Structures are given as C-alpha cells and as structure tokens.
C-alpha cells in the first residue's frame, strides 16, 4: 500500500521534450516508474529515452496512461491539465511554477467535477519508495518504510526525508503538496489517506507560513487521526507582508504566522520539531513507534 501513487501507475509526461521533462523522465524511470507516453504538441512521433511522444493527450491514450505529470510552462499549464482531465485521467501532478492563481482555481475545481485528484501546482510531486515516483524528488534520499510525509516545500522535504532514511525510518509515501496559495490536494486530503493506509504507521507534516492550512489540519487531526503526527514549520522568523520565495508563504493581516500554526499543532497533540532533522529524533524517542 501507499497513498495516491503505487506500482500500478502508468505515467504520461506532458511537456516531455523540454529540458525538465527529459531530465526527469529519465530520473523517474531510474526510480522504477512505468512511463508509457509523453506529449508535446507539434513533437509527435519523436521518442524521449525510448518513450513515444504524441501531439495530444487523446492520441497518447492508446498507451493507456492512468496518471499524468505536467512540466508545461505556466501560461499553457491550465490547458494541459484540462486536456488530461478531459480524457479521464484521475491523477494529475503539476510541477509547473508561477501559474496564475485564477487558472489554478479553475483546474482544481474542474478536477473535482471530474472526480480526479490534482497534486500541486508548484510542487515536487509524489514518491512511494519501491513502487513509483511522479515528480522531481531526488531518488537517493528515499527508503521503503512506514512514515507518510506531506509537505508544502521541496528541498526542505528532501532534507527531512533524507534525515528520516538515515535514521532508519523509511517512507510509505512522500507527497509535496506545493508552495502556492491555491493547491489541488491539501494536508487534510493527505492525512485522510495516510490514516486509511495500513502501511503508514506515522505521519510527518512539513508546513510553512501563510494561509491557514496547518491550523485546519490540526483541527482535523484532533478529531480524526489516530496515528502519531509530527510536524516542522518553516518561517518562524519571517517578517509580515513579505513573500518568502513561495507564492503562498506570506503573513498577511496578522494571519499565517508560524506561532499560530505551531500552537494549533501542539494543541492537537502533534509533536513539532525546532530543526528539520529533529523530526527523526522525535520519532526515535517516541514510544508509540
């Protein structure tokens, strides 16, 4: 078991002929992901690392993909996501950064209407060690195991996952939800899935300033989650009103501070780490694990 992405994934890569698309197609294959097709309009008939490229998602369907990853540049990303949703793909992972928020709102709601899941945008994707990876997360940091990780960040997650692996704690699934204010899958979605996943024994959440997703997650944990949850929140020293790299990482109108998130988590019984690598130590010292 794993959440959202397992060994049954047959992946389509949208924007496969671009620099990122090519590079990560290879990296995903090395991780063990089954990549069945790629799409770049106008580049049909080519091959990338042996993967056939099509002009449209509709044509690529002859290879029977059941998930898609989007590397398409921001101005065209909405079109790419809708194209995938329209042919019935139920999992779309959007790596692209800087997509206009109104575009994201539309494809997030369209996905809901189509009964599909969107992960991202502006995210590193999802990896279930030993099974599959749909994303750009580095292969070497993972280890098969029982910790579920959900995060709003990229590199910070790699740092934490790496520390977990080195301490002997492998992962069931690690999902990067994305650094934008509007995202397709939330902490609550991930918590729900990890709670239902037999393989997952403990959950790690990596949050940051901006919005109220952590507060909402804390409330959900208090009444719905039986598994131990650990968290790290980035941005304790971030000043209000400044966007800290991620579009969603901004304290505005007094909302979205790290203090508020840490307090909410602690009140919900979540152990919060002061340093990223401390998460592994918290788990190690927890008698429940």
């Amino acid at each position, binding site marked *: 078991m794993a959440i959202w992405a397992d060994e049954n994934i047959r992946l389509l890569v949208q924007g496969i002929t671009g620099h990122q698309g090519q590079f990560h197609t290879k990296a995903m294959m090395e991780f063990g992901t089954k990549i069945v097709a790629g799409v770049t309009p106008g580049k049909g008939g080519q091959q990338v690392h042996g993967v056939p490229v099509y002009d449209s998602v509709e044509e690529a369907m002859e290879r029977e993909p059941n998930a898609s990853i989007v590397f398409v540049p921001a101005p065209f990303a909405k079109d790419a996501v809708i194209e995938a949703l329209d042919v019935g793909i139920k999992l779309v992972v959007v790596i692209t950064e800087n997509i206009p928020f109104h575009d994201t709102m539309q494809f997030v709601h369209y996905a809901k209407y189509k009964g599909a899941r969107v992960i991202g945008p502006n995210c590193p994707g999802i990896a279930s060690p030993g099974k599959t990876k749909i994303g750009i997360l580095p292969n070497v940091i993972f280890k098969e195991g029982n910790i579920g990780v959900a995060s709003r960040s990229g590199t910070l997650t790699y740092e934490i996952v790496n520390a977990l692996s080195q301490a002997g704690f492998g992962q069931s699934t690690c999902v990067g939800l994305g650094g934008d204010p509007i995202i397709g899958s939330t902490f609550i979605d991930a918590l729900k899935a990890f709670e239902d996943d037999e393989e997952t024994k403990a959950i790690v959440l990596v949050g940051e300033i901006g919005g109220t997703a952590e507060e909402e997650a804390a409330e959900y944990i208090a009444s719905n989650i039986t598994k131990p949850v650990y968290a790290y929140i980035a941005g304790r*020293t971030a000043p209000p009103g400044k966007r800290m*790299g991620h579009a969603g990482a901004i304290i505005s109108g007094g909302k979205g501070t790290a203090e508020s998130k840490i307090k909410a988590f602690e009140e919900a019984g979540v152990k919060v780490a002061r340093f990223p690598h401390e998460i592994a130590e918290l788990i190690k010292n927890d008698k429940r694990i």
Partner: protein
Amino acid sequence: MKLLEYAGKELFKKYGIDTPKGRVVSSKGELHNVDIPFPWVMKAQVLVGGRGKAGGIKFAENMEEAEKIFDELMNMEIKGEKVRKILIEEKLNIEKEYYLSFFLDRSSREYLMMFSPEGGVDIEAMAERVIKTNVNPLIGLQPYHLRRIPKEVRNIAANLFRLFIENDCELAEINPLAISNGKAIAADAKVIIDNNALYRHPELPKEDVELTPLEKEAREKGIAFVQLDGNIGVIANGAGLTMATLDALNEFDGKGGVFLDLGGTDDPAKVKQAFELMAKAKPKVILLNLFGGITKCDTVARGIIEFMEEHKLDCPVVARIKGMNEDVAREMLSGYVIAVESFQEAARKAAELGRD
C-alpha cells in the same frame, strides 16, 4: 502587485464603477491645473494600509491650504513608505458607507464576496456583520448571490466581480463604498493583481514600491530575494530550506539579513549572479546551506569559485553542503569557504561570526 488608489480607481472607471471626480498630482505646479471646485480631499498615494490613521488624508478649503498640505503630505513617510503622488478629489456628501470586496479564498479555494453594512473601518473590526458569499470559479457570480446585499450596490458588485476576474485579481476591495446623493460611489480602491498573471496585463502600471532596489534587481533576474533587518546573508536552495535556515540562525541568536533562494538551479552563471546580489547587500557573514538532490553540489561550487575569483568578498562564507557530489564540492571550495558538517553547526557558526 498592489495598485495605488488612483490606478485602482482608473480601473474601476473602465468597469463602470463610479468614483469621485479626481486628479493625481506629483508637483505643486499641477495643483493650479486641477479643475475640481473646493473643498478638496487630498490623499497621499501609498500602498501600505492605515493611511487615514497616519494622517495621510487631509481637507483643503482653498489653494493656500492645498499648497501647504501638498508639502506636508509629500514629505511624509507612512510606515516607512515615501509618498510620491497625491490624489485630489471632490469632497463627497456621504449618506452611508458600506464595505465590498472579492478575493481568492485560500481555504475554500473559491472566490469570496464580502459585504458589510459598515464601511470605512477595518474589516476585522466588523467581522460580526459581514456577509460572506462563496462563488465557484467555474460558475461565477449568480443573481441570487447579489440578492444577499442591498439593491443599491448590486450593480457595482457585478462590475467589481467582472474586474476581479478579467484582471487576475487576488483582491478587489471598495472600502468605503459610499452612498452619496443616492448613488453608490467607490470612495477608495484597493486592488492586488496576481504577480504570476502580470504577463497578461501589460497595460497595468507597475509601481511596486514595496520592494527595495536590490529586491527589484533580484526580481528582474528571477531570483527570490528578501531583505531583512539582520546581518547574516542566507543562501539556500528552495524557499522552505531558506526559511528553515533563517529560523535555525535565530535559535543561536543570529539574525538573518537576506533571504536568497537559489531555487532548483545549479547553473554556475546563476549561482554567480546570486552571490553578486548577496555581496551588494553587504552582509557580515554569508551562510550557504545547500541540499543537493537534483541540484549538483559541484556545479554550484563552480559558480561560487567563479564569483570569488572575480570579486573580493570582504565577509566570510560558512558553507554546509550536502547531497549529490558533496565531496567533490567540498574539496573544490576548501580555501574559499568555512565548511561545516551539519545544518545546526552551520547556523551556530554563522551566528557566532555575525556577533563579533
């Protein structure tokens, strides 16, 4: 990107939203060309909130007063922001003040219309009487949504919604929305455009005066860069890791002066550019925290060396380098940087160097 009030009101007019008769001036001489009868409302144009409380809105009965107020306002700094323009408007005869806005609601992931029968004050202060209406982005504003607010402002709400959508707004707010002689008039304008969508709106004025000159330069170069009030410059790859590094510094009583996120790049030219920008901010210490996953540590190291060969850097660089090709990178950088093993050690060392 926030629009100044006058620019927001110009946008309002295009969408059929009435605004008070007004003129923008930035020099004293222009006052004499203003064809609005006294009394005037003179409003300092700044992006920060709380302008009224800070004394940024004044009334003038005649030209003599207007000239005096002009000098006062133009020499004013509101929460650190310099006043660069003044909006002069007719004084309205106000019967009622409402609040109306549309914004992107992060938690419901829908548009939210907010209306309050009490305008002119902070929206937080009137939370109880606010009518909140969620609007699905695929469906848009419906007549029944509008029936929840008074008849006299429904037309303005419909127009404001159209403006909000067509201009990729994060926020479009009218506070106060005044009723004057039976007509609804936008007495103020607050419009925030999504930066990611600016490419679709080349016609909008770009006056993001909230950025420092270095932050502007960084934005042009596509580097995430924020100036803070400490003396340690932090360079890391990834926004979350950069924030976490700043937080770690704080644990050892160090204070971050710059947030610089290298992003996913390991292009030596980009790395060099980032260091050039960092050097301009004149930090006392630079703390480099690199986690190479996809990013190769040795290519980042090459960029650093290129920079150091060309420029004389007068502050130490503490470097914690982890991940892909870390050994090679560390060897390359010996003699150039103070290498440390762990995240925590790096923060401790940089904080220490920042103190003496």
